[in-house]
């Protein structure tokens, strides 16, 4: 991780004229061989060191906990149990199912948000009048706290006084949304989509406004219809921006569970018990922090792999532009 020996011109000029820096670097490093040396290094130092402090130490502790039985009373104490917690992972049928549901939930929510968000952005982009007002209103859900989205979802689907329950009944659906496994799962998925589609739409719209108009003119002169224009000109040029949206959503989609926790609590019949709900239960209902650490690390690993894949795609797209 040391900086490249060839360095560069811009980096060597700075140390001689130290301007008013907001924060001094952690260590006055002059040699270019040290990481975080040079002007760029000093710029990065405060942020990265702080980030390291708030993330690496807890991570190390979680890894230690995953190999231990965690005692809380009288101060935290770790009693080493080897790979016992990890071994349990492979014999735990709940965990396997939780991951299946997580995968489905991830694909449906993030996929739905990407598709609907892009579609919405294209509609807004084609809208001649009232685009601003519409966008302002459509963005609102992303400003709602997830815990409120969960409670609001519960309020709307309550089988006694929920507005949506009443609307569904007018439409001839007399079941109880949260009582059936499929509809409960659909409901929590839709709540997540409700909250996060606007973010994707916003990012996609930002991408759309940069599509070169010359290319669009050319396409319309060729007589290409909207679908073909979208497919061959618009989508390729906003693909990198969409990947950014995808990355932002995938970072959070696996971790957040406020909506599920506040509506179904994982039921009925475990239908909405995703890995993050299970993690929360293991830690704070069962106080089994060793096994929770294992679950947490697994989630981190999966998120990392997924994100890594999207970043690779992004990097592959970047040079093309």
């Amino acid at each position, binding site marked *: 991780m040391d900086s490249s020996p060839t360095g560069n011109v811009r980096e060597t000029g700075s140390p001689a004229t130290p301007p008013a820096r907001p924060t001094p670097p952690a260590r006055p490093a002059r040699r270019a061989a040290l990481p975080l040396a040079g002007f760029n290094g000093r710029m990065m130092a405060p942020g990265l060191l702080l980030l390291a402090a708030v993330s690496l130490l807890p991570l190390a502790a979680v890894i230690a906990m995953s190999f231990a039985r965690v005692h809380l*009373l*009288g*101060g935290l104490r770790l009693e080493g149990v080897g790979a016992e917690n990890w071994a349990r992972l492979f014999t735990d049928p709940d965990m396997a199912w939780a991951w299946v549901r997580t995968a489905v939930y991830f694909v449906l929510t993030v996929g739905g948000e990407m598709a609907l968000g892009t579609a919405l952005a294209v509609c807004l982009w084609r809208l001649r009048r009232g685009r601003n007002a519409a966008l302002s209103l459509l963005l609102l859900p992303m400003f709602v706290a997830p815990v409120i989205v969960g409670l609001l979802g519960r309020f709307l689907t309550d*089988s*006694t006084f929920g507005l949506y329950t009443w609307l569904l009944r007018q439409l001839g659906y007399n079941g109880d949304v949260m009582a059936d496994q499929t509809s409960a799962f659909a409901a929590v998925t839709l709540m997540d989509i409700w909250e996060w589609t606007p973010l994707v739409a916003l990012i996609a719209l930002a991408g759309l406004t940069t599509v070169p108009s010359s290319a669009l003119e050319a396409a319309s002169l060729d007589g290409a219809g909207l679908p073909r224009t979208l497919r061959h000109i618009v989508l390729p040029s906003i693909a990198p921006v969409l990947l950014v949206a995808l990355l932002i959503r995938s970072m959070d989609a696996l971790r957040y569970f406020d909506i599920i926790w506040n509506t179904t*609590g994982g039921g*009925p*019949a*475990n239908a909405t018990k995703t890995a993050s709900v299970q993690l929360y239960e293991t830690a704070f209902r*069962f106080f089994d922090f060793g096994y929770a650490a294992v679950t947490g690390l697994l989630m981190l690993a999966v998120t990392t792999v997924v994100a890594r894949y999207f970043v690779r795609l992004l990097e592959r797209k970047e040079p093309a532009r």
Partner: protein
Amino acid sequence: MSSRLSAGPPKPAMSRRALLRGAAAAGSAGVLAGCAGRPDAHLDADAAPWKRYAGTTLNFISENTAPTAAIAADLRPFTELTGIRVNIVTLELSALAQKVALDFASGNGEYDVVYADPYLVLAPYAAAFADLREFQEDPALPRLPGGFGDFIPAHLDTAGRFGDSGKVLALPYDCPTMVWQYRADLFEEYGERMADDLGFDPTPSDNSTWEQYHAIAKWFNSHAHQVRYGTGHQAKQHDALMCDFSNVLWSYDGSYFADGTRVGRFGTTDPGKCLLRSDAAVAGAEFYDRLLRVADPASRTWDWDGLGAAFRSGRIAMCPNWHEYAAANETALPGKVGYARLPKGPARSAGMYGGTGIAVSNVVSARRRRAAWLFANWATAPKTQVSNLASKVGGGTPTRASVYAVPRVVEAEQRPSKMPNMLTAEAVKAAWKDANLGLRPKIPMWGECDTAIYTELSRMFAGEVSPGGAMRAAADRIDRITARGWVN
């Protein structure tokens, strides 16, 4: 890891006794650590017992329950009495359990007084609470008015003790109990027709059985236009489902573990093998499944709160629910709701008692503990309980026998009542008799066992498993959980 974080008893404590010794050591270590971070309690040794700790500020962490709402709304009497200020943090139960666990993990306590849910807090962390007998016997401290003996015995044992050490770790603070709540107006209107059709007197009484409850519910489904369904239940995949099912399980002579008194009333870390595979338990589950088939289908989305709201909205004619909903019922359906002990099964009637006590943390300094005792003492005193009953913001119901004899309170058992929760007095007093008491296992790993039970029941409603299959699957899981043991 810093030395502070790893401070604690050096080796795993295997037996309960060793565990307690370790915790005592940890407690004293916590005192030292605690002194560094927080100011100790003020002490004026010459003052009167109630005034000795004037100037101290205590932290009380509580679930957002009715008595806490009433106390939080008016703390003035306590501050005037003692000169102690109290910060109250109210949270919902799972958040409370989370904060308390973390507080203990840090080795020095932030909270002096803790709302100690017997199953999520008291049983797992019994060693972290002070034995209150010590304060009661201390001549320098004010004694409990009426002593420990004034608390209803079932409450003191269940909410206040853990294990057979004889210690009192918490003072009974609230006492929600499951009773049969029914629309008395509808029973009156249809009583004779029902009696003709069904062949028995439907009026809820000590002789009513679950089979009759089932028949009444079914009758209401098709005969009464005021309600959509006869019965509703708290059958969401949630703690509430275990509570609702347990009443039926026990009345069918089923049980979670052998020796229900030892496991339920006093609590243990080693409950033995799970008994849900028994024929009685399976029969209970079969009946419960059958009952849910005639119940409002939305039952599967309700916890106790959703069920309470449904009952108040008038969509169901009856339900088993916590008696503390009486006040809200009386507001929504004035004069129309009756309360009775839950029906009998083949073995007995069982109504779950779900009360909780408030405990004094053992990981704060000795002086703070003594100041905390003043608060616990005051907050459960008969006088406070009477004024809670009349409070506009909350209520709760008394845990002390003497309060149930106060003329004002006795009067409130009949309508018109200024303390509408007292309308349930007869039903709950019947439920608290030893023969009718329903107590879930008080074991430190109950959170996980509870989850196994309500998850399997939820799968049973979904048709994924048969009642017998659900009981066996739950038993298998519980045995695995208890086999891992508990050494926190």
